[in-house]
């Protein structure tokens, strides 16, 4: 049977630059964990429940419930700077 040569329709992907992750903490005890509300659907209610879980199960962890400044599509350096300055770790939610 005869064969055909055809062209690939897909575009050109960018180079991937692998990024190093932040060093993990040895413990959460005595540390401040930011619970960052991405302000989508009912994320704030969910994170409040996670905050309650920490209060009950790991009371030595200080938690701060923090809403991002605008929508999740917009970078929020002010909030990231605050977390870096005052916190030790972050939990972001809820992605969809």
């Amino acid at each position, binding site marked *: 049977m005869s064969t055909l040569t055809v062209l*690939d329709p897909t575009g050109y992907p960018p180079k991937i630059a692998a990024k190093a992750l932040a060093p993990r903490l040895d413990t959460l005890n005595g540390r401040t964990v930011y619970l960052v509300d991405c302000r989508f659907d009912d994320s704030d209610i969910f994170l409040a429940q996670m905050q309650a879980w920490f209060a009950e199960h790991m009371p030595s962890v200080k938690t701060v419930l923090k809403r991002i400044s605008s929508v999740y599509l917009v970078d929020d350096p002010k909030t990231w700077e605050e977390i870096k300055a005052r916190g030790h770790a972050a939990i*972001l939610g809820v992605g969809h």
Partner: protein
Amino acid sequence: MTIEAKYGVPTVAVHTDKFDKVVRSVADVNGMPGLAQVFVPQPIMGKTPGELRAYVDGTDPTTGRSVMQEVIEGLTLPRDGARARVEYDRSTPRLVEADTEEHLHRVFLERNWTDHLPIVLPTEARVAAMLAGTRRKPDEVVGRMRSTHFREYWEYTVEKVAVNAVMAGARPDYFPVILALAATGVTARGSSSSAVAAMAVVNGPIRHEVGMNAGTGAMGPYSHANATIGRAYGLLSQNGQGGSVPGLSYMGNQGNSYAYNSVTFAENEERSPWAPFHVQHGRSAGDSAVSVFSGVRSTAFTLGLREKHWREHVGHLLRGMDPHGPPVLLLDPIAARQFVDRGGFAKKDALIDWLHDTARMKAGEYWDYQLIQNYIYPRATFGEEPWASKLKAAPDEEIPMFRREDIHVIVVGGETNGYWRIMGCNYQKTEPVDAWR
């Protein structure tokens, strides 16, 4: 990802389980495959605090492990892939391995390169013929697209656009319009869970040169040019941006049949009582241009404008739209002239002013819309206008549902009757076609 990589804060991202493949894929292409991600059931929306507490106390549906154990481990245990910075290239080949026609059709389907309708195989001869439809060089970069905010942009050349145009069944004389659509960089395959499509409106002499339909059946399957230009836009979008695969790079919950040809039509300039759409957006009447809209989801329709209650009827249609999807009126020329006759809207701007003023609802209801909560309320609290001012309104105060600049009017149809409709969507940009001839 930003807070982890740029600010050095150990982070866990919590997502709903329906998004496990897509968010893992996004982490990969952003160079962070080891990013700590934990999943809870979908949906979050509308659940009570008690139900959401059960999510916290429960297990990750993708692993079966305790959600909170995964969260704590994500912050305290070393992560796979937490390696030093490296870069690596990815590439796509120019040619597909030679095969029989039957097998190649199967390959294109299996690789998710089609819209699941039969395609024309892009042989070198067919692509060369398509390339004859422009003076631009095959290796010239036309633009770049991505399916969503968090994904990486892929770019495409004139030749890649030609390949997709051939697949769609387009003719070479349509190619400048397709290139202009590609040059907008606005994807017709957005991955939003709201199941969006695009819409493309063509203005100027090119409409007649290539036989586009602005009259009877313009928005339906009754014009080779309308059908294949719009299809080419969709195929170029999904392939040029690197994919549109449900669960991986497409998350539209119900899908959207408008996406088959991206609602592509010509404006009926000759029968419109107003200036053509592209002239409103900075082009001359003698220019050819294509205007693209994104987020095409909702449609409302009615017949004509009744003398006694037309204002109320239009108001009801507008209030039936989700306030996050601004109205774009698609008026048959009969309906357009009725707006002139009934409302005295000799200029399109006057009609848009009236629509903006008519589309109102109580502030309390407006702010309670889910999409307003998701996308507008945060911006309002951030101080962005006009939403920040709207926040000051009392709950019973009637406020505009839409920004005036987001409301548009286009004339299309063959005057078989005065039916007209409203598409809820977002105007993005107008791109000249002549530059791509």
